[in-house]
């Protein structure tokens, strides 16, 4: 009776017999019940970009176009402009006047984050979004710059949940300062609107000891 042996194995996986449920019942936010939850994400996951601001509200972007130059998909378009000395947008000479990212080209490689000299562009953990037309997919500066509370702006076609906008920076670079012994315990990131100055990253062995393995949430 090989047929029923197979069925018995399947039946034993059922919750009734103490089996574990493997299916993550995320449904894109349409059924907002208790099962509609995202899986836990690693802290350096690459998602939608944000343009950060300093603690005093000034923009970090200086319009240097290094991100646009390094982008392998050529999805970033930046134009810099001289700051108005009376009413500057960013500290220093220039600021990002035009900043556009086309999400129908972006491959979330994070090379722009690596290239940015002022830590202006980083990535949040949101990747649950989809577009109904091509114009929605081109994010301009108005959509990318963080709000006055330092949190990313939420578009209607994006599905933000708790935790997607925490630590949008400071953990995003692969070339973390504590990777080199010279920078261990030093503050590697400039202060940020809404988050302030972050604690320095610990030394490599210390960090390895404390890093928890990210596991999927089981219910």
């Amino acid at each position, binding site marked *: 009776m090989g047929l029923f042996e197979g069925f018995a194995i399947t039946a034993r996986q059922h919750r009734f017999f103490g089996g574990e449920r493997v299916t993550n019942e995320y449904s*894109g936010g349409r059924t907002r019940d208790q099962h509609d939850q995202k899986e836990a994400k690693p802290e350096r996951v690459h998602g939608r970009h944000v343009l950060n601001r300093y603690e005093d509200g000034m923009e970090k972007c200086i319009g240097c176009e290094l991100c646009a130059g390094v982008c392998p*998909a*050529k999805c970033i378009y930046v134009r810099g402009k001289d700051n108005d000395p009376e009413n500057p947008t960013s500290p220093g000479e220039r600021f990002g006047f035009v900043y556009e990212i086309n999400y129908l*080209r972006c491959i979330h490689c994070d090379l722009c984050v690596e290239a940015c000299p002022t830590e202006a562009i980083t990535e949040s953990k949101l*990747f649950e979004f989809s577009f109904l*037309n091509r114009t929605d997919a081109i994010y301009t500066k108005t959509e990318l710059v963080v709000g006055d509370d330092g949190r990313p702006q939420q578009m209607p076609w994006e*599905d933000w949940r708790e935790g997607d906008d925490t630590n949008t920076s400071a953990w995003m670079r692969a070339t973390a300062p504590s990777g080199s012994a010279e920078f261990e315990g030093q503050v590697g990131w400039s202060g940020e609107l809404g988050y302030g100055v972050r604690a320095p990253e610990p030394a490599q062995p210390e960090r390895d000891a404390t890093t928890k393995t990210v596991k999927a949430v089981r219910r």
Partner: protein
Amino acid sequence: MGLVQDILDEGFSGIQHNFITARLEDLVRWSRARSSWPASFGLACCAIEMMATGAAHYDISRFGMEVFRASPRQADIMIVAGRVSQKMAPVLRQVYDQMMEPKWVISMGVCASSGGMFNNYAIVQGVDQVVPVDVYAPGCPPTPETLIHAIETLHGLIETGELLKRRVASGSGANVHVEAAPVPSQPVPVMLGAR
């Protein structure tokens, strides 16, 4: 028998609405959204994520989509997963034409949506030049969550019937306008590096 002729001519929209037929149309839309079978059109690495969406961890049979049909005649949604080369484009269009109305298209991943990082002569720069796309899922490749978000966005639009109304009004799919480029009478030489 005006009523029967209207239904034969125009389908459900030919019925003069009363409360029974209005509920019937809701039921039709509901069943269209809840059992929309995808045509398997996996072309590249996005197809791996599409398979992952179909497997037990994400399980799109929750949305009535677990049967990926090899025959386009049995499919409702075409998920274009991966980069479409110029040679593949006519095949894609033929598969789309073979699908039965009503039909929808999800452009999965940046290569299908706009060519992505392959901005070259071999890849179609956006599959909406070939077929009318309803929902674009960004990412390289999109995670199963992104694809589920796109699928559920599309299902919501199918349930409201908005997409089909728009298609009837404009004669096309979502935001797509294709017209033939005018053919010059004389061949135009390509001057590379010329000033």
